């Protein structure tokens, strides 16, 4: 625990960034959904799992490979999200948001249970696409190319979403509708439609993360629920409702987790929750949340 070689340290930082990349993409979507719908989307992990499964099914049953899946899967998962919002969540809008939470929690259990029933609980391997086999050297570091790709793709997607929300007209509409949906409606904007599409897009983003995850982790029905608990801690630490905050927090916590593995491996599974407790004690609104 004393003198850790720099390369090992850097290696863990990079590995931590991979987990952090998933935390960032998922907590980003959660934060946006919470802002627009006032719903804590417990089904987010299930949509991530759905993304990985659809990706795997496309390969095994349709012969559709990784690259097309990267585009098709988010669209499929997003479409499922649109239906879920239209048929269920939109009817829960305006009542206590406990109902939204209960509904999405139930949906997550149902999806997970349904996939276990049909496909069994065991994991299914998904091959790394040919173009992303091999390794990259970053100075003294050697990293599988695929993991490098996951970090890069996630960060690019996060930045793109952030730019979309902070710098475009569509983003301004989303921010305004988050603040005062009735006034934005009175200005002539179909806010319910905007809400539906936002939910679909954020859930599609979770599906995208599922595709990225498929070659790294086993594609299994429980992969979402394992991850989502941590992602919720990330959201609490970053502060609900802050887009930039959830990206930074996600990446940072992945790194903290990675470093803990070097210095105190047994603590790596709980370090994020320790950070959460600390943050809740010192800044209950989260690191990037607005104090009210």
């Amino acid at each position, binding site marked *: 625990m004393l003198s850790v070689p720099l390369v090992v340290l850097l290696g863990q930082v990079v590995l931590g960034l991979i987990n952090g990349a998933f935390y960032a993409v998922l907590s980003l979507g959660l934060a946006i959904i919470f802002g627009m719908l006032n719903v804590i989307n417990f089904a987010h992990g299930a949509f991530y799992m759905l993304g990985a499964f659809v990706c795997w099914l496309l390969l095994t049953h349709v012969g559709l490979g990784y690259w097309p899946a990267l585009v098709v899967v988010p669209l499929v998962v997003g479409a499922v999200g649109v239906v879920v919002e239209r048929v269920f969540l939109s009817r829960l809008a305006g009542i206590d948001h406990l109902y939204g939470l209960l509904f999405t929690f139930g949906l997550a259990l149902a999806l997970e249970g349904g996939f276990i029933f049909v496909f069994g609980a065991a994991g299914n391997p998904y091959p790394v696409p040919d173009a992303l086999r091999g390794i990259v050297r970053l100075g003294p570091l050697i990293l599988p190319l695929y993991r490098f790709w996951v970090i890069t793709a996630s960060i690019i997607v996060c930045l793109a979403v952030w730019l979309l929300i902070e710098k475009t007209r569509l983003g*301004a509409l989303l921010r305004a509708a988050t603040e005062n949906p009735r*006034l934005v*409606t*009175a200005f*002539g904007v179909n806010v319910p439609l905007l809400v539906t599409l936002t939910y679909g897009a954020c859930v599609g983003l979770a599906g995208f993360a599922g595709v990225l995850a498929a070659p790294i982790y086993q594609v299994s029905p429980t992969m979402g629920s394992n991850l989502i608990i941590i992602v919720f801690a990330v959201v609490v630490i970053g502060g609900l409702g802050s887009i930039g905050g959830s990206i930074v927090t996600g990446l940072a916590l992945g790194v903290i987790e990675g470093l803990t593995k070097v210095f105190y491996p047994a603590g790596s599974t709980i370090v994020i929750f320790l950070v959460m407790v600390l943050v809740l004690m010192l800044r209950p609104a989260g690191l990037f949340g607005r104090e009210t």
Partner: protein
Amino acid sequence: MTDAPAPAARPRRLDVRDLHAWYGESHVVHGATFHVDRGEIVTLLGRNGAGKTTTMRALAGVVRTRKGSAHLDGHDLLATPPHRVARTGLGYVPEERGIFASLSVAENLLLPPVVRPGGVSLAEIHALFPNLKGRDRTQGTRLSGGEQQMLAIARVLRTGADFILLDEPTEGLAPVIVEEIAHALGALKARGLTILLVEQNIRFALAAADRHYVVEQGRVVDEFDNTTLRTDRARIDAYLGV
């Protein structure tokens, strides 16, 4: 359209009859009847809590539980889905101004979709409200109260809305700013816009508007023209309790 006196010089734009509105169970507007003709500025006067703001919210579709009838240029406002009301040409400037904190001044200004051609251009807006010039990147809610009011008005003018609901634009503002807003209203009237104005400040109402309705407990109980309002102060003071 409606049964306006036969060859009316000004066609009727807003026609409200027996309008009722509720917040949940609480019945706030109790059968308001009034009208606004093309090019007019008409005020709703009345004490705090009389239901003026609620009347405006009901017309703008912000309050959804309503009965009675309200037509703008023949469009049935109560039957129009809330996100389509703006397309009838109605621009809503709420009492609380509704400037978005997470949007810059420019984003606030450009937020409402353009509903018809002929809106006030950005150059004209900056001529009308010089305070807004050069403030594009400022956070909307960092503006002073008066500037936020200007922004709230400018925001709906840009969309081409030509019937403006303006709820207490001078509330809590310094006299200099009130004057600027009065001047802007004059310019808008000259452009042919029609305005329904809620006002507590009688002097401002006199200077800005053509006709005045008095609202009490959710009903329109009296109507004044400018001459009566000027000469019969006792009558209006009795309503407003000043």
